[in-house]
């Protein structure tokens, strides 16, 4: 069997259900690290054609629930071991889950790769195969176009720059290894480490920009939370300018998560109106509360809504303990009904905005605060942003290899071993630019160092 690949098998879009497919050597094992069935059985023990309900987990954290289908070779679409995981179709969930599968050992599938494998394993006829070729061609044409477009971009330039920096470090060590008799500068491990740390910072920055890039691409996930009946749905509706949530004065009206996409000054925000968090009595609402908690975990921004005209109860703040990682705006709503004196520690919020459904001006101020908090408006449009999973994985891999190199130097490994990791880091970046590693290094050695008899 070939190495394990993973990809979304359904169109990537906001949809009810999405299927992530893994195929190849170790597919079941890799899936079992990420998907844990509710009943006490691992995917590893399951026979082919069996399904299990369970959770997609990242360590202790539950990302989503769904169903996993196990196929054992040769009885599968590709003829290899296959696992298909059906989960909920939110983009964030898909990306997060895919990332988990990649981290556990799968690599992203190339265009048409599942089908290609199916053909190679005699799961398909000749005519079908020809169709596959067309797909690969079309896709590779598209990806070529995409790659060419990317080459003009800031990301490409930045990756090139970082790659040059690592190559410089690597080239010096390589020249020193291959030309021991030349009077080249000694390779000093503190120097090398210092330079590697610098590159490591650059790569980490690039990865954090990935997040900003995603905010632009996928929208800022904004979750509205608060005690029932403080006016969350009113805020939602005001922001989106339409009736999305059902507004009543019966608390607990919003039982499920309501989603809406708005743009403020050209930036996209995906708003989620959650069920009010409180001790729910009926079951339907309880599920809503659990969902709300899950949403908070994925949020980029929290609007914490308080009824400014009422005394605040302690348990209202309970929910904030799920929100520690995210920027938060405290929305004091219903201020037109008179502001009640409350002893609130506002320091835990990034800003406080007073709103009233009677005064649209207050909503404008909320919008401006939402924008400034995400810091996207200050983002330089030329800043390098990572735009897809493939690029992100390459950068992540380069970063991991650099860390390996640093730890190898620290634990006293010889240079021939250290350069294996540095080479691998360059290699994964070169994958984005399509160059060959050894040529790249040899060119560096000859152009920068005076070596030779």
């Amino acid at each position, binding site marked *: 069997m070939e190495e394990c690949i993973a990809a979304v098998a359904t169109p990537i879009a906001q949809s009810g259900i999405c299927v992530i497919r893994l195929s190849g050597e170790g597919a079941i094992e890799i899936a079992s690290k990420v998907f844990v069935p509710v009943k006490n059985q691992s995917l590893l023990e399951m026979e082919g054609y069996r399904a299990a309900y369970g959770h997609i987990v990242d360590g202790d954290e539950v990302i989503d629930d769904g169903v996993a289908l196990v196929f054992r070779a040769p009885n599968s679409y590709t003829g290899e071991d296959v696992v298909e995981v059906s989960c909920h179709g939110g983009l964030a969930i898909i990306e997060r889950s895919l990332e988990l599968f990649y981290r556990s050992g799968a690599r992203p599938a190339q265009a048409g790769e599942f089908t290609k494998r199916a053909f190679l394993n005699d799961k398909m006829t*000749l005519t079908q195969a020809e169709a596959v070729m067309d797909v*690969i061609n079309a896709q*590779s044409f598209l990806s070529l176009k995409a790659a060419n477009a990317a080459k003009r971009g800031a990301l490409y330039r930045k990756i090139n720059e970082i790659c040059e920096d690592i190559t410089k470090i690597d080239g010096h060590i390589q020249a020193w290894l*291959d030309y021991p008799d030349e*009077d080249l500068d000694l390779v000093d491990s503190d120097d090398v480490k210092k330079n590697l740390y610098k590159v490591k910072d650059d790569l980490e920055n690039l990865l954090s920009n990935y997040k900003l890039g995603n905010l632009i691409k996928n929208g800022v996930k904004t979750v509205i939370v608060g005690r029932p009946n403080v006016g969350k749905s009113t805020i939602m509706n005001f922001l989106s300018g339409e009736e999305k949530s059902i507004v009543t004065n019966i608390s607990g009206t919003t039982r499920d998560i309501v989603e809406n996409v708005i743009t403020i000054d050209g930036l996209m925000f995906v708003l989620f109106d959650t069920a009010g968090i409180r001790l729910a009595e009926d079951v339907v609402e309880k599920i809503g509360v659990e969902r709300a908690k899950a949403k908070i975990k994925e949020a980029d921004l929290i609007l914490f809504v308080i009824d400014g005209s009422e005394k605040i109860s302690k348990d209202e703040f309970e929910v904030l303990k799920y929100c520690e990682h995210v920027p938060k705006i405290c929305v004091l709503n219903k201020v037109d009904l008179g502001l009640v004196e409350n002893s609130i520690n506002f320091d835990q919020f990034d800003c406080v905005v007073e709103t009233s459904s009677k005064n649209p001006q207050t909503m404008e101020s909320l919008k401006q605060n939402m924008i400034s908090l995400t810091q996207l408006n200050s983002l330089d449009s030329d800043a390098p942003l990572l735009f897809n999973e493939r690029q992100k994985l390459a950068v992540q891999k380069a970063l991991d290899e650099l860390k390996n190199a640093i730890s190898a130097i620290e634990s*006293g490994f*010889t240079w*021939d071993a250290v350069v*294996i990791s540095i080479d691998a880091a360059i290699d994964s970046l070169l994958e984005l630019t399509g160059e*060959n590693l050894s040529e790249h290094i040899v060119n560096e050695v000859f152009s920068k160092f005076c070596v030779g008899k």
Partner: protein
Amino acid sequence: MEYILESMEVAVLGAGHAGVEAALASARLGCKTILLTMSLDQIANMPCNPSIGGTAKGHLVREIDALGGEMGKAADANMLQSRILNRGKGPAVHSLRAQIDRSSYHTYMKNVLEKQDNLYVKQDEIVEIRVSGGCVDSVVTKLGAVIKTKAVIICCGTYLEGKIFVGQSSYYGGPDGSPSARGLSDCLKKLELPLRRFKTGTPARVNRRSIDFDKLEVQNGDEVITPFSFSNKLQLENKIQCFVAYTNSKTHEVIRNNLFRSPLYSGVIEGVGPRYCPSIEDKIVRFADKPRHQLFIEPVGLETQEIYLQGMSSSLPEDVQIAFLRTIEGLENVEIMRNAYAIEYDCCDPVFLYPTLEYKKISGLYGAGQFNGTSGYEEAAAQGLIAGINAARKICGKSEFILDRASSYIGTLIDDLVTKGCTDPYRMMTARSEYRLLLRQDNADERLTPLGYEVGLISKEQYDMFLEKQKKIKQEKGRIFNVTIRPSKELNEEFIVRGTSELKQAQKMGELIKRPQLSYSVLEKYDESMPADLPLEVKEQVEISLKYEGYIKKQQQKVDAMRKLEIKKLPIDVDYSCVDGLRLEAREKLNKVKPLNLGQASRISGVNPADIAVLNIWLKQRGAL
């Protein structure tokens, strides 16, 4: 009048380092072989540096030896001084290099050739290769004699249309004052071999008595000498010293002031020079900010006063050569015996070869060594060996002998040549291998000796020795995981000194030896059951394989992935322009290289993963038809 002189199976043209290995391999594998050289006195000559080995080149020599070639044995027998370079930088880059007695090396090799069964050594110049029906038929000497042959291996080094440049003067000539080979190039052009011009150079030889050695740094050989050959039984010792000197600003000034008299800078030389072996004027122009350059002062032999000045290759006029050499401390009164020169020669684009080193267009015609665009004695010998083996196997009706990149530097060298070609003379470097930690000079036998035995160049006796060593390695690997090392005051003090953490509780020796700071020499003191007669080379293998276990495993995974593509064979008679779905660039490149398998195809620049996917499916379709 033309006449048939001989009837042979294999004819080797040229008796340099490639030709010698090619002829010996072919004769030893049972083929009636003739080795033709323009001068019997130039057999296995070293017209440049009087040394063998160095980084990656030392690896090549060990590999040649492990396969049953001659270079390692000859180097051991004629060595003057030996050093392992790169100690302390890790086992993958430990590299053996020896200074060699140029004249006795030649005599030794000539003798080995003369004594070899099935081998005919003859002084003659070949001016024509005849091909009939796409197959090699015969070669023709300058005197018009025809030698019938089934295979021809071209190993003509820098002789083809060789042209010497010294300052503004130039003349047709080969290396070391020999004449160049004129005529064969025209024949090769008619056979549609794509020829081109490369260039290389060599420094001056000077008289030992004219050097003030008191002003120079001494460079001694290793106290314990590691031989090149795995089967060496000779007692090796250092017989000479080498020295180091440095250029200075005055040297650079003399050179800069005379650049206009260099054929390289005045544009007379059209050949492409090697990047790794720049002339001194090149170094000074390209690296203008370097205040000094190193040169090595190396004796050429025991029975001569000639000294080689490594690092000072030049094509400036002789008066300038003397002037700049005399600015160097220790060389104030230096006398030149042979001047430095640049040489330009015809060679062939190796992309037109299969990895067997046979020409794709002409059955039975092989190329090896500098003719294939490489540089260096070791690179040449490695190719000669592979070409010789393949020519013989083809005649005997046996399968091709191809080493892949994960097996050896030899395999890497040839794969690079035939897959990517080369735009300047190709020199081996460890940085060219993606499996550096697997391809060590210390384990060349483990990688290649079983293959050498299978081919028939390694004797039963040598092979048994090899098996014995492997058995000991296996036993020892098992043993040290049964040896428990306990903490003691003495041991922990030593651990601290070596910069590793103290031992808190007893641990297996096999675990402890994985620490970079520890080795057999430290731990065996605490191991009472240590067998006294355990050979050093066995300890070395055990230690490296455990210490670098993680890296070795990682590299092995890369190898496994590569070999999955490598086993998918591509037919050689394909017209890729008819394969639907390939991009235009990929079609052209594939048609030029005609890769033997998907792995090789994937390494061609301009062939991308989508093209490989297309080829994979196309292969499958073909199988289904």
